[in-house]
């Protein structure tokens, strides 16, 4: 049987508690614990922590009902739903998927913009500073400026639905859906590459383009 000193045993405490040591090491470590009050106290503290952790409740109700806020966002159709095929697990392919998604949204938004110009979108909409909607340069997650700006614009667009033709409405919604799917794909790629600057920039670009599209759509002249 091996003989462990205190440093060795203390470095094994986690594995000992997790029962991750092989039989020989476990036997040696336990032998040391029987003879060493200091290490035994550490082991007992680790065991108590494990027991306390396991007894923690897994569920904690929020102090207020969060459903109204969720319903507000999904019922007013500020959130575009769509089929999203998860990219395959092979990393190089994910990169291609994310890059392809970004390319698609660029093309899509460009087409929508061109179509809008042909339909007589006012120049003020095209030249208005989209950056005025940005609180931050990059996407900052829930509750940040980009998402808030998007929600406000989406709400404004919904208010104008009756003024737009079904064809125009369909083009705008389809393009929003393309961008939403692109965002979802980029976020999936980011799960594997969270610190990748290129993906972060792609995500921020996607949100900007979505806001850009919404801003222009909300300024379309009434058709109906």
């Amino acid at each position: 049987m091996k003989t462990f000193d205190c440093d060795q045993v203390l470095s094994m405490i986690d594995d000992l508690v997790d029962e991750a040591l092989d039989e020989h090491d476990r036997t040696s470590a336990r032998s040391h614990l029987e003879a060493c009050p200091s290490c035994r106290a550490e082991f007992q503290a680790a065991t108590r922590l494990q027991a306390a952790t396991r007894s923690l409740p897994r569920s904690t109700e929020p102090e207020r009902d969060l459903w109204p806020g969720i319903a507000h966002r999904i019922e007013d159709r500020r959130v575009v739903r769509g089929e999203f095929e998860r990219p395959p697990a092979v990393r190089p392919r994910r990169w291609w998927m994310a890059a392809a998604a970004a390319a698609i949204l660029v093309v899509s938004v460009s087409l929508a913009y061109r179509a809008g110009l042909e339909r007589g979108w006012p120049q003020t909409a095209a030249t208005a500073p989209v950056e005025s909607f940005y609180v931050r340069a990059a996407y900052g997650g829930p509750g940040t400026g980009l998402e808030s700006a998007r929600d406000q614009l989406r709400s404004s667009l919904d208010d104008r639905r009756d003024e737009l033709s079904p064809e125009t409405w369909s083009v705008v919604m389809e393009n929003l859906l393309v961008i939403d799917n692109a965002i979802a794909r980029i976020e999936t790629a980011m799960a594997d590459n969270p610190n990748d600057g290129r993906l972060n920039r792609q995500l921020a670009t996607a949100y900007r383009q979505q806001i850009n599209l919404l801003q222009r759509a909300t300024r379309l002249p009434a058709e109906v």
Partner: protein
Amino acid sequence: MVIPLGSNRRPAMAGPMTHHSDVDSAGLVDRAIAGDVDAFEALYRQSVGRVHGLCLRMCGDRSLAEELTQEAFVRAWQKLPSFRGDSAFSTWMHRLTVNVVLGHRRSAGRRQNRETAAGEEWYSEGGATQERPGVSMDLERAIAGLPKGARTVFVLHDVEGYKHTEIARVAGMAVGTSKAQLSRARQLLRKALAS
């Protein structure tokens, strides 16, 4: 709005992580995929405690936890059409929530971090915390006071039962880093609870 919806969901498999409510929720999931907001609200009522509990424990801030909980359900509504039923809805929702919280944490590095470092805010008010006397409350407070990286790994590994390989994948860190963070978290917690 042109949103062709159709369920490509496979029948829910009953497994170790499948709860009775998951079997009951299968019909709700199909209805929610088809756009039934009432069904989605029922799914929300079933799972909000679990989702909020996870958010609260991972971020240590009550206000932010509510915000992330809402974001997780909005994201779930968006992505439900891609839910294939390979796992129970609760498992799918759980993973989605972890991704939402970690995604927020990644982006938080680029802006003002709202998460508490001292772990005081979580327990500064009443509510659920008052129902947790003694060691549990001390432990919750101590968890909330952990550094972010250590807290993430501790919650996912010791509370939620993730393996280090899974944590490494979802959190974008090496397996060795996950193990080191867990060891650090446990040491800090033992020290906090002993004092």
